[in-house]
């Protein structure tokens, strides 16, 4: 979080410092005379009250709604994770202490889900971001119809998890599916994507990659366009070719953006839910017949609304949160180290 704090502090101070001195004076002057006559008239009092209270009124909706539907539930989830709460008997909640967590840590399905989340996260995030940088680099050339290319690359983003997964499920079907049919041209025997272990994970990842590569490409493109021209000019003067310019100018200048996308994609991967649920079809909430692609998000849904153990589901949610915090902390360390090395 410190990285964003530093990033934010900059615009905030620059914006406040420049006009800051003037409005202060203007406000002082107007406080004395400008608004309606008589310093103690009800209108001027109302005016001053309005000045003071309105900023809080403007930010209040966010904090009220987030507080009620985000923060308070977060704490209650912690509370429920220490209780035995069953979907079938919501009125009988009994104290369970750390049982839900103990139960979780001794469950092979939890570790399986954790491992799947990690594997699917890696095989969906890494190719996705690498391809996104490549596409962004190409889109950064002067292109005919550049906007059209950008819109086309972003189209999968407009597709919902549900629609995309249903389509890919059919593309990956064992019998007569498009992908197995294409593979037979290169001499590969049909793969039972849904039932095989790595096949299912690969298929689920490909849906994520398909939906998000274009989105990340646009983020990289935006950052690339902000790189000062003279860096490329001096690199060219030093005799750097296109590839060397890309490696030694573009990629280092993109580093903060890359870190940003890595964090966002990691958060996304930790919460992966819809793709494996729908890809699994009938055994969706199990993540396939043998839990091949059951992620943590899916495991939580299965425990909570499949099996009906909401206490355990709460414990899974909090465990996911802790994992995210660890990821954020690691990111912070890396950012710090990068800053120092620069």
């Amino acid at each position, binding site marked *: 979080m410190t990285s*964003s704090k530093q990033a934010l502090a900059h615009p905030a101070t620059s914006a406040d410092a420049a006009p800051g001195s003037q409005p202060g004076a203007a406000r002082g002057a107007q406080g004395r005379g400008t608004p309606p006559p008589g310093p103690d008239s009800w209108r001027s009092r109302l005016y001053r009250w309005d000045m003071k209270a309105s*900023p809080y009124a403007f930010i209040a909706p966010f904090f009220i709604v987030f507080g009620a539907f985000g923060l308070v539930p977060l704490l209650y989830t912690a509370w429920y994770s220490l209780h035995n709460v069953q979907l079938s008997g919501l009125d009988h909640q009994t104290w369970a202490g750390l049982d839900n967590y103990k139960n979780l840590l001794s469950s092979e399905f939890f570790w399986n889900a954790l491992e799947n989340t990690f594997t699917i996260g890696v095989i969906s995030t890494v190719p996705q971001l690498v391809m996104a940088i490549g596409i962004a680099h190409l889109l950064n050339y002067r292109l005919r119809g550049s906007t059209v290319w950008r819109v086309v690359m972003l189209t999968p983003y407009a597709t919902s998890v549900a629609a995309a997964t249903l389509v890919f499920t059919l593309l990956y079907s064992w019998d007569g599916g498009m992908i197995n049919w294409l593979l037979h041209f290169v001499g590969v025997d049909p793969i039972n994507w849904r039932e095989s272990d790595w096949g299912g994970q690969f298929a689920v990842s490909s849906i994520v990659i398909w939906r998000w590569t274009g989105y990340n490409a646009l983020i990289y493109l935006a950052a690339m366009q902000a790189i000062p021209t003279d860096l490329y000019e001096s690199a060219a003067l030093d005799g750097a070719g296109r590839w060397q310019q890309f490696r030694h100018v573009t990629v280092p200048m993109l580093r903060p953006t890359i870190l940003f996308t890595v964090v966002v994609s990691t958060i996304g991967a930790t919460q992966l839910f819809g793709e494996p649920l729908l890809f699994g079809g009938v055994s969706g909430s199990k993540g396939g017949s043998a839990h091949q692609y059951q992620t943590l998000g899916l495991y939580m849904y299965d425990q909570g609304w499949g099996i009906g153990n909401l206490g355990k589901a709460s414990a899974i*949610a909090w465990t996911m949160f802790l994992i995210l915090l660890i990821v954020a902390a690691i990111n912070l360390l890396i*950012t710090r180290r990068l800053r120092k090395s620069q």
Partner: protein
Amino acid sequence: MTTTELTVPQAGAKGTPDGRGSGRRRVLGAGKQLHAGPVTYVVLTVFALVSLAPLVWTAVAASRNNERLAQTPPPLWFGGNLFKNLQAAWDQAGLGTAMVNSTIVAGTITVGTVVFSTLAGFAFAKLRFRFSGLLLLLTIGTMMIPPQLAVVPLYLWMSDLGWSNQLQTVILPTLVSAFGTFFMRQYLLQALPTELIEAARVDGASSLRVVWHVVFPAARPAMAVLGLLTFVMAWNDFLWPIIALNQQNPTVQVALNSLGTGYVPDQAVIMAGALLGTLPLLIAFLLFGKQIVGGIMQGAIKG
């Protein structure tokens, strides 16, 4: 997030009120922009095909029947069953209700998010108040919290309130957005001249008048972009609607889920459902694709 640092000095140097437009960036980048060679076009075409092919093929599959879809090779061109399958998907999944529900849900969430984000973004960008820095940091920090953490209590409370399967269950928790607040703040920092607010203040305008006559007009372009992004997100939301709503009163995504998890799946009908569920957004994308692209690139620089 950190990229903010890169853009701020530039924008300050240029100082144009809406200097965030792509025009300025294009000028900046012009010097280094090399013309694309044929290889670039070939590679981009391949990626474009990969992006579009699954969508086009959805329509192809939706126009066939189940038996044909199970055969090899898969159909590569349209058949004659499209309207029959669309009709079947519409009826089986209750897509009529679902479309109306999704429109209400996504529409309300969009209006709420845009208005509340503009108000809060304006306060954080231009008003001075105690703890504003800390509160902004808190707002951004909330983006770290995964939605899974709220689901169990929300589900229990909504059941207690008798709100299960009702649309407000889905609308209320999503009515504000930390990203939107930050997005509007960054935009208004640049796009709204402080003198304009001061002038209105000197004339004795109340805060609400300032918001209505100065802030909203200045924020309009960013409000449009945030609105489009929010609508796409709300329309596609999956986790909470699937827990909170049932088959009697679904959103489009919940309805599609029910099509996909049937025991005797009719693939052609499922594809017709997927096509129908995506169509409204694809049409919006055809109309506003440029703005959505611009918004994501803007948000990327700022967010």
